[in-house]
Structures are given as C-alpha cells and as structure tokens.
C-alpha cells in the first residue's frame, strides 16, 4: 500500500470495523457458550463437572500446556540417564570409597593387626606352601578380609607377642600417610586372616632365623587402585610399606592382566628415588640405574647401586605404562614384583617371590 492510498486511511480503518466485529452467528455462539459456562460454573462446582464447550484450539493449547512440565521432567531424566550411561566411566566410585573407609577404620583401631606383619614375615621364610597360600588368597575382597581380620584379632594378639620385631613393625606402619595406610592395610588385613589358619600348622619357633633375607609380602609395597581406559598411558607410583632389606637390590616389575596371564601392559620407562638407611640410622639417596629394556619393556627393572642395604619408606618408584588398546571393560591389571628376571616374564603363577598389588581396572 503506497502513501497515495493512505489518503483514504480512515476509510480503510472503517472497513476494518467489519473485521473487528462479530457477525450474527459468532454473537449467538459466544452468548450461548457464555451462558453454558456460567451455568456449569454454578452447578458444575457442586457436581464436580469440568467446564465444557471450549474451542478445539483452546483445548489443544491447554493439553499441551498441562503436559509440558511433565514432558520436560521426563526429557531431563532421560537425558541424564543416557549421559550417565554413555559418557561417565562405569566404575562404582562409591564402593571404592566405602571400602577404603572400612579398611582405614581397621588400621586405626588395631595395632595388633599391624604387628602381625612382622611375625608373618618371619614365619613365611620357612614355608613355601605358606607363600602359595598367601598369593592365591590375596585376591579376596576387602570387605571379607576386614570381617575375617576382626574375628581373628584375638588369635593374632597372642601370636604377635612372640614376634621379636613387633615394636619395629608397628612403628613403621604408623609413619605411613593416609592413602598409604589405606592401601597397606587392605593387604595387611587379608594377610592377617590367613595367618590364623596357617600358624596352627606352622610353629612360631622358626621366627627370625631367615629374617635377613629379602622377602616381599603383599603388605610391603603398594600402588593405588586406579580406573583406566583401554590404550591410556598412566604413571604408576610404587612405594614401600616398610623399610626393606634388599640383597640383590634388583626389582622387576610387570603389569599383568589377571584373566590372561600372557597379556602384559607395555612399560615405557621406570624411574626411582631410592633411599637407604645409613649406619647411624639416618637416610641417604642411592644412585639407581634407569629403565632396563627387558623383553620389549614388558618388564622393567630398577637397580639400587649400593646393594645389600635397607631401603627406606621414602623410596618411590615410577612406572610409565600403557594399557593395551584391546583391553576390555572390566579387565583388571595388577602390578607384580619379582626379584629375578626369569620369573618376571613367565606367566608361571607360582613364582617364588611373585607378589601382586594394586588393582588397575579398565573401564569404558
């Protein structure tokens, strides 16, 4: 419409009056609806009736408006569920934290449990059969071992009184940090439980005869439990749970799939900060050799130069490893420590000094 046409602007506005005016049919329809609604409003409240004769478009509008909040809630819940299912790692963090708490409680309340580490260490020297028992049973769950430890506490108290290294062991354990204490005790409690059954057949008279030997138990070294993805590169931090005497001062590490012993994670590098105990009771850092290529670095070795010394709990070993790309969700890798390379590469489950610690779970 051009400006010239607007000379008749008022005429157009007058013509619009027809558009803004109801015709006879509309008037009677609106009046009828108004009366119906008024009557149903008066009588329908008592009778519980809904107001009728809404226009179809209004009814659709009302239906959509009423359904919208519920639909939005359902959409949000579904979206959250789908996100949680597909995007979040499928590992139950709650379970892990609960387990950790339970175990740390055990640590704080039972000194007698920690003293059994020492007695166990000495007992262990004389019995290969006992070592086998420890290795095979060390995979029991934490909750089970905690319960068992409580039930076996009284037994262990009496046995621990006979151990010569009781005071030393308890003191060492107390120096471990919070996280370390958790990991340490996870394995400690399991060991304690086994001791109750083993010491019935193995006398404690064999105590300290071979205590000078290098020996590794589940409680001596630890790595944190971790959740990883297939193909992910991680750095494992290995610490000593107590001062350890190393004759050869060589440690071989392998990260092995617990279901497929032939499958191992590739170790890229090994670094170590090793400290030894000096004659006057202090500590000094020991020069170490770096990574040693051993079988395409599926096993790595660290060598402390000093040899035949007591390595302290300050010592830390770092392992850079890559989880296999074909690892499946739910696979568990555990770090294994060997004193001898011939055991390190074999999938022989009965390696003499073989031990396992830390659960590296594959998720996603």
């Amino acid at each position, binding site marked *: 419409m051009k400006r010239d046409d607007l000379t008749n602007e008022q005429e157009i506005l007058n013509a619009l009056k027809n558009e803004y*005016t109801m015709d006879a049919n509309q008037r009677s329809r609106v009046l009828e609806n108004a009366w119906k*609604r008024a009557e149903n409003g008066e009588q329908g409240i008592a009778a519980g009736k809904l107001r009728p004769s809404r226009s179809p478009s209004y009814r659709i509008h009302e239906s959509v408006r009423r359904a919208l909040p519920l639909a939005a809630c359902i959409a949000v819940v579904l979206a959250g569920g789908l996100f949680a299912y597909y995007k979040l790692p499928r590992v139950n963090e709650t379970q892990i934290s609960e387990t950790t708490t339970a175990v740390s409680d055990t640590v704080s309340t039972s000194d007698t449990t920690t003293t059994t580490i020492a007695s166990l260490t000495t007992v262990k020297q004389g019995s290969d059969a006992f070592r086998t028992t420890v290795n095979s049973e060390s995979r029991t769950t934490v909750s089970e071992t905690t319960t068992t430890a409580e039930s076996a506490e009284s037994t262990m108290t009496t046995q621990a009184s006979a151990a010569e290294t009781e005071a030393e062991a308890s003191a060492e354990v107390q120096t471990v940090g919070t996280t370390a204490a958790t990991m340490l005790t996870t394995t400690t409690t399991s060991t304690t439980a086994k001791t109750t059954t083993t010491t019935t057949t193995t006398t404690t008279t064999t105590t300290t005869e071979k205590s000078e030997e290098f020996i590794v138990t589940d409680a001596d070294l630890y790595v944190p439990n971790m959740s990883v993805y297939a193909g992910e590169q991680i750095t494992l931090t290995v610490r000593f749970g107590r001062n350890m005497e190393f004759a050869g001062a060589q440690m071989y590490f392998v990260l092995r799939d617990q279901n497929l012993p032939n499958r191992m994670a590739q170790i890229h590098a090994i670094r170590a900060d090793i400290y030894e105990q000096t004659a006057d009771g202090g500590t000094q850092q020991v020069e170490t050799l770096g990574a040693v290529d051993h079988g395409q670095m599926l096993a790595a070795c660290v060598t402390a130069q000093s040899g035949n010394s007591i390595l302290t709990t300050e010592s830390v070993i770092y392992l850079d490893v890559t989880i296999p790309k074909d690892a499946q969700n739910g696979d568990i890798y555990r770090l294994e420590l060997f004193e001898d390379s011939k055991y390190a590469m074999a999938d022989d489950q009965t390696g003499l000094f073989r031990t396992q610690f830390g659960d590296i779970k594959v998720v996603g």
Partner: protein
Amino acid sequence: MEDQRDSYSQFYERNANLVYAVALSYLRHREDAEDCSADVFAQVFEQKLTFESIEHERAWLVTAVRNRCRNRVKHWFQSRRDEMPENGRSDEAAVQLRMTMDAIAEMPEKYRLPLVLCAVQGYSTAETAKMLQTNESTITTRISRARKILRKKLEGGEMNEA
C-alpha cells in the same frame, strides 16, 4: 430468572463487539477471541455482576478481557500463533485489510488499543479514555502516533515509534 437473563442479553448485545475487538487485537485469532469473549461474559453472568454506569461496565470489560488476553499471549504456545482471519476473500481489498490488521497487531499495546477502540470501533476519545482509564489528551496523542506508525509500516518502513 428470565428477567435477569434478558437484562444480561442486553448487556451482551451492548458490549459484545467491544470485548471481541479487544480480544482479537491481542490474540490475532478469531476462535481464540471468541473463546476469550465467552469467558469474560460467563464471569459476568455467573457472578451476577452489576455496574454503576455504562462507562463503568465498559472499563471493567476492557480490563477483564485485556488481562485474560495477556495471560494467554504470554504463553509460548499462544505467542507463536499468528493467524488473522482471512474471511475467505482473496481480492486486493482483502489483502490490504489483512496488511493493515497485521500492522495494527504488531503495534505496542498502548497505541493499538486506542486505535482499535477509537478509530476502528468508533468510540469517542472521551469514551476511550474512560475505558482505558487515562486522559483524553493521552488518547489523542496515542491515536495520532498509532496512525503515524501504521502509515510508516504500510509504506514498508520499520516501527521505530515505540
């Protein structure tokens, strides 16, 4: 009861177009405007409302229908409805009318209502001022500006007068 119904029928005849025009200018949809009008009259009938004067009843009706329309329009579903009735005509005059109605519908409320009531429905400035509860001079100014906006809009310009 019959007497009361007769009096309300007269009331309805007096004000039906006023309520419908205001509703249509907000809702831009013929059926919704009817529905809203029926709601307003149903409230009067149901509550048996009485008014002091013609001006009072008009002012009450305009306020009531305006509030109902605002409630509907602010909902996202209604705000997306943009369906002015065509009345089945397709000639040039119908197109011009449609353009004019669209332009009026897009105006700010303070200009649209005086224009519809005064310039379209034919109420006087004084009557419109009482219905909208404002001054006559304000109504005159707003109608003038509304016409200006309408002219500019129909020429193809933007509505900058709001």
